[in-house]
């Protein structure tokens, strides 16, 4: 039978329209529901203006509104302002208190998955585990490019979770780590900023060949006398890894939620860059059934030349998800 992977949407996807007040949060939820997505991922510091003092009435509004549209809140994206003060960094105790505050709001919203920023230290998270367990919230450290599933920093979280024997600490993969092809929208914007087509092609070819970024950056910056746009384009390679999708199977017990990052979908509902066609069969075979939560991040690459239509982009990604999930078979 086909996989039971669930489809969801992060409100991050509509940042252009939400920022410009062209959509409301409820518009975004209603749209997600209209394309069959059932999980709504929230960024309280983006979507809840009263944060951190979110009232019970506001919490009730969120729960009622998603329920009205047949959805549920799937994940809470936390932030941690370790640099809130200019004169000193937050102490460890202050960091734990801030995360505990988020865990409590997450629990009040009825959400059981929290996205932890990748820079949060494992020893801080270890101190938060008792609170996460008591509130039944899974803390997933975001595996975001240029980190990847087997980066030593990520393995420290895995090791901590194993040592504690907890089910409430793990990871939360961002699919940007599976960038198989260089995004055409990146290239096009750098060309508009002055990158010569032949230099842009060299960078794209180098990424396609999976040449380590520093070689390409040196070639472009020094040997080719690259201009500002060309060097900046080459430097994006540092953050454009193609990790092995097969590794997802091994780490599946450590994640409950996925941020389905994308930069552009074609009119034919294919992703020209991120290898969802390889990722989804691996997740299905592992019988993973959390949310693939759309995270559209293409607005910043096209807004200088064309209106952003986040809804159409998300709709196309979900058409692709339906196709790929429908084609899977699970072991059992």
């Amino acid at each position, binding site marked *: 039978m086909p996989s039971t992977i669930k489809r969801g949407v992060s409100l991050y996807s509509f940042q252009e329209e939400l920022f410009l007040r062209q959509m409301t949060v409820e518009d975004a939820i209603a749209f997600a529901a209209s394309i069959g997505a059932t999980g709504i991922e929230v960024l309280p510091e983006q979507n809840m203006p009263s944060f951190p003092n979110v009232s019970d009435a506001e919490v009730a509004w969120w729960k009622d509104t998603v329920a009205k549209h047949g959805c549920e809140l799937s994940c809470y994206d936390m*932030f941690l302002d370790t640099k809130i003060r200019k004169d000193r960094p937050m102490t460890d105790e202050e960091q734990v208190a801030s995360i505990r505050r988020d865990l409590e709001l997450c629990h009040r919203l009825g959400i059981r998955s929290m996205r932890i920023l990748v820079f949060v230290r494992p020893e801080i998270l270890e101190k938060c585990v008792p609170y996460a367990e008591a509130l039944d919230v899974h803390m997933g450290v975001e595996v975001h490019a240029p980190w990847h599933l087997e980066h030593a920093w990520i393995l420290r979280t895995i090791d901590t979770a194993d040592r504690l024997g907890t089910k409430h600490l793990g990871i939360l993969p961002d699919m940007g780590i599976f960038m198989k092809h260089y995004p055409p929208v990146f290239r096009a914007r750098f060309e508009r900023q002055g990158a010569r087509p032949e230099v842009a092609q060299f960078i794209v070819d180098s990424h396609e060949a999976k040449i380590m970024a520093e070689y390409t950056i040196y070639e472009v910056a020094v040997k080719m006398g690259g201009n500002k746009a060309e060097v900046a384009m080459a430097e994006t390679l540092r953050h454009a890894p193609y990790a092995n999708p097969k590794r997802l199977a091994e780490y599946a017990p450590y994640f409950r939620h996925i941020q389905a990052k994308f930069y552009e979908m074609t009119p034919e509902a294919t992703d020209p860059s991120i290898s969802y066609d390889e990722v989804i069969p691996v997740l299905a075979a592992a019988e993973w059934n959390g949310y693939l939560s759309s995270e559209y991040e293409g607005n910043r690459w096209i*807004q200088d030349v064309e209106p952003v239509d986040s809804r159409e982009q998300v709709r196309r990604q979900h058409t692709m998800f339906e196709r790929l999930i429908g084609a899977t078979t699970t072991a059992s």
Partner: protein
Amino acid sequence: MFDKYLIVDDSLRATADGFAFDARLGYYRGLGLSMVEDLVVTIDDEPVAREAIRFDETGGGAPLTLDEMETNYDRQWNFGAVATISVIASEPLAPGAHSLTLSEKLRVSYLPFPAMNSDAKTLEVAA
């Protein structure tokens, strides 16, 4: 990510002692005021002194200097919210077209360096 939207269109106006305009935070979430490290303004290619800048995200009545913002841990500039930036000068800004630039230097904790966002627009001050 939102550079072109930082300065709100058609918002430049003369005040009794200078000028004011409306602006948004170039970030995909809100940020406490203490983490707005600097707001750099130029008008007609002339830099504005840091001390001459006032910021108010409350809708009026609670302007802060940039130094005061640095230790304000209670107020925040919310996602997409329009705040007013005023500049105290010796006289009201003259009517007509003016080139205005704004750069926002933000202390985003997870970034290894400060985030810099910039916008430049030519706006008209009504006669």
